[in-house]
């Protein structure tokens, strides 16, 4: 493999008492790849993602994220990734401009860089007339697009997206994916979870977790072939129905 890997995971495991939430998972994600991380509720996605973001220490195994070790260099990882979820995104009582400035500051950008980023994002998202509006006054779709842009304001190696498009209208949901493609073209690796199976088709590769293990990992085309299915929805149902453990 000549592509640069930005995530390398080997036998990564997390137990809570007797319960093995994440059970020896191994995979690699390359630079600029859009990697879909799927699984039923309770399959272990969130626990795995928290370990990769440096928020939870694994029980055993190995993982390097953006060149840093999840055991020893969790703080370094946090500085080199972006994160966004449906629940946590922006500060509602700050304006659009203030949110960009705040996150730019947190990620250690210089004043000049923050100014440039603010101008670029406001123009790129067509928010010129709203940059001084409070985020809470924005429609949900705009918020989510802005939240994604803010999550990558520091041009991180990887951005983790946890169900970023839940509840968003269908047009905005597609515009959101265009932002993902755009980030990927710029070399940012995108690690994304979703409950929309059509979105799984937009990923370069998709992994499906069942009961703490990665049960399948391939391109959408490859998965559909292996599981003799016409859609990712069908692939997912065939695999996820095998789950024994509850959530």
């Amino acid at each position, binding site marked *: 493999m000549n592509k640069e890997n930005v995530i390398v995971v080997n036998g990564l495991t997390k137990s809570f008492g007797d319960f093995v939430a994440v059970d020896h998972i191994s995979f690699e994600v390359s630079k600029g790849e859009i990697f879909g991380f799927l*699984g*039923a*509720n*309770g399959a272990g996605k969130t626990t795995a993602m928290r370990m990769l973001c440096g928020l939870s220490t694994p029980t055993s195994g190995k993982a390097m994220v953006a060149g840093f070790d999840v055991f020893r260099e969790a703080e370094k990882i946090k500085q080199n990734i972006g994160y966004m979820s449906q629940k946590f995104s922006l500060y509602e009582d700050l304006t659009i401009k203030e949110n960009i400035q705040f996150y730019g500051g947190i990620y250690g950008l210089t004043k000049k860089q923050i100014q440039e980023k603010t101008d670029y994002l406001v123009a790129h998202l067509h928010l010129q007339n709203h940059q001084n509006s409070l985020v*809470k*006054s924005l*429609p*949900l*779709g705009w918020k989510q697009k802005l939240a994604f842009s803010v999550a990558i304001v520091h041009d991180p190696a990887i951005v983790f997206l946890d*169900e970023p498009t*839940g*509840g*968003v*209208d*269908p*047009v*905005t949901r*597609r515009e959101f*994916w*265009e932002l993902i*493609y755009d980030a*990927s*073209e710029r070399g940012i690796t995108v690690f994304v979870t979703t*409950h*929309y*199976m*059509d979105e799984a*088709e*937009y990923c370069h590769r998709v992994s499906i977790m069942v009961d703490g293990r990665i049960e399948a990992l391939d391109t*959408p*085309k490859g998965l559909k072939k292996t599981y003799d299915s016409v*859609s*990712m*929805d069908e692939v*997912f*149902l065939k695999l*996820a*129905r095998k*789950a024994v453990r*509850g*959530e």
Partner: protein
Amino acid sequence: MAKYNSNNMSAVIVENIIKKYRVEKTEVTALKGVSFEVAKGELFGIVGPDGAGKTSLFRVLTTLLLAESGNATIEGHDVVKDYKIIRKKLGYMPGRFSLYQDLTVEENLTFFATIFNTSIEENYDLIKDIYQQIEPFKDRRAGKLSGGMKQKLALCCALIHKPSVLLLDEPTTGVDAVSRKEFWDMLQRLKLQGITILVSTPYMDEASMCDRVALLQEGKILAIDKPAQINQQFQDPLWAVQASNMYALLKVMKQWEAVASCYSFGEYYHVVMKSENAGASAINEYLVERQFQEIEVKKIDANIEDSFMALMNTAHE
């Protein structure tokens, strides 16, 4: 107020409901004159994204919120005047988990049964199918249940007094594809028992599980009909287009002046051309000229998401 000629077959009648909120100094109109009827025994879906007004509508119908204007009745009872009667007839599952976290599964269910002067035993038949799936955990506190189990318990609690109308506000939000399918199977079985079900969802694909749906966007209904009928009203020819480099293809299609709209749908883009004369061969030729490989263009029927987006765009014009 015009006297409404009530239709005996309608379980729910909603007439021109307007609901406004004040958020600090600005006024937000959550429902901009919504009207529809749900027949007795019907499984009726309110489909729309977050912020469309789904929860406001459900709160007006469950007598928890007063509308600025308009009327609504549940089985002939007015949501304002007859709220006491309505609360006995309705089963309601709010979007946010609203059971007692510190009570066990069984205690929650007993509590709701007692409030309605009934018992678990009396209406066990109605919930049996669903309750059996969580019964092994009946001594577990509700707060310690997984998302899917909470959802099943909430449904049992909403059903325990044998309501004739069931209102479910986004029961499948955040739930994975497998659990969503199971939940809809449960609703189909409840429907067989004659319960009228009004359910909201942000997932467009769930529209096909309903007898009829209202598509809701920004407080307005875009369309009300059987899902198949809504899709038949999509008038323009629709093309599914695919090529080896999908992102490059998207950029090209979006810049091509002959394209009216281009949206991604799984492994294809769904494309509407401005002119009906521009069909598969025109698209194919254009892409061949631009060196695309593995091009596929085929005519397809619109699905509910195609219809929703087309209606959204018309509403904005």
